[in-house]
């Protein structure tokens, strides 16, 4: 009896202690979208403008789709978010980063690419959206077995 109570109290404390819950909720609708267009719609993004100030570094050829490095840096003034979309993936939305005072709009990550695909990166600045698209070819590396 006592131990159950203790366990319950412990569980309660754990939930309390998780004001990790200050986290923005995970956008289930956008992450479940099956096309890049639907994902962007769920995020409320329409007609992003191409921008040279949004730099995306990817390898043109990746030996392995399991790890494709993507480095993003935005020089667009007032950038508050970066969004990564991989068009040909079964669920194209890969991630969304929100930057607050103290952080620069820069991120480097590794993503999985199911096949050769466009990698679309969007930046949000002052309520407007900007986009840069790069293609990554996925090849077969070694013995293939």
């Amino acid at each position, binding site marked *: 009896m006592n131990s159950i109570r203790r366990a319950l109290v412990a569980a309660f404390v754990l939930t309390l202690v998780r004001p990790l819950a200050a986290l923005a909720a995970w956008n289930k609708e956008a992450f479940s979208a099956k096309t890049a267009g639907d994902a962007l719609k769920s995020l409320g993004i329409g007609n992003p403008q191409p921008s040279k100030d949004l730099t995306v570094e990817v390898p043109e050829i990746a030996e392995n789709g399991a790890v494709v490095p993507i480095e993003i840096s935005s020089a667009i003034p007032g950038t508050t978010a970066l969004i990564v979309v991989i068009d040909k993936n079964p669920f194209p939305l890969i991630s969304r980063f929100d930057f607050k005072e103290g952080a620069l709009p820069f991120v480097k990550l590794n993503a999985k690419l199911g096949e050769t695909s466009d990698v679309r990166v969007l930046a949000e600045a002052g309520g407007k959206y900007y986009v840069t698209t790069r293609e990554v*070819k996925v*090849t*077969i*590396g070694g*013995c*293939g*077995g």
Partner: protein
Amino acid sequence: MSRFALLCALLSLPAWADPTPADVQKVLQRDLHPRGQAGMDRLNQDAVQRACTQSRDHPAPDVAKPLEAEQMKTIAFPEGSLIGDWKKGEAIAQSGRGMTWNDKPGEPAGGSCYNCHELAPREMSHGTIGPSLKGFGRTRGNGADIQRYVYGKVYNAKAYSLCTQMPRFGTSGTLTPQQIKDLVGLLLDPASPVNQ
């Protein structure tokens, strides 16, 4: 004596210090164990493997010629056209499966062709251990002689060049005669992507 000098001394030791292919075979038989379809009999060198090991893949012509002739006798050429379905051939060329200890016995194997050869130009991920076969049939046509050459070469490459690195796909039981015909199709059919 520096380690480098010692290494040089070691490397120039007389040949008696080197284990023979028969010695190595014994060591491998002791240190490897059967798994799946890969049995210990695979470690028994045949005359071809022994001659190539001994000569580091450069056999003297008087050693190579009779062995090549013997290998030629292992090839059973089917009657009629040898040109199979290039589409199936392309799938066989792409696949690197077959004959390993974790491949299920009985399941169709591949030829691992792209591991070493360029074939269809649209496949940029190809190896270069073997020569490029891009446009192979375009320059050579697809008559009976070239059909027979390609079939035989895939079936038992050692009949043509004793110490080639290319496996004996027919003789080893890796590919079936029909699969080898499909590969002939891939190389020689004018509609094959190899010849575009």
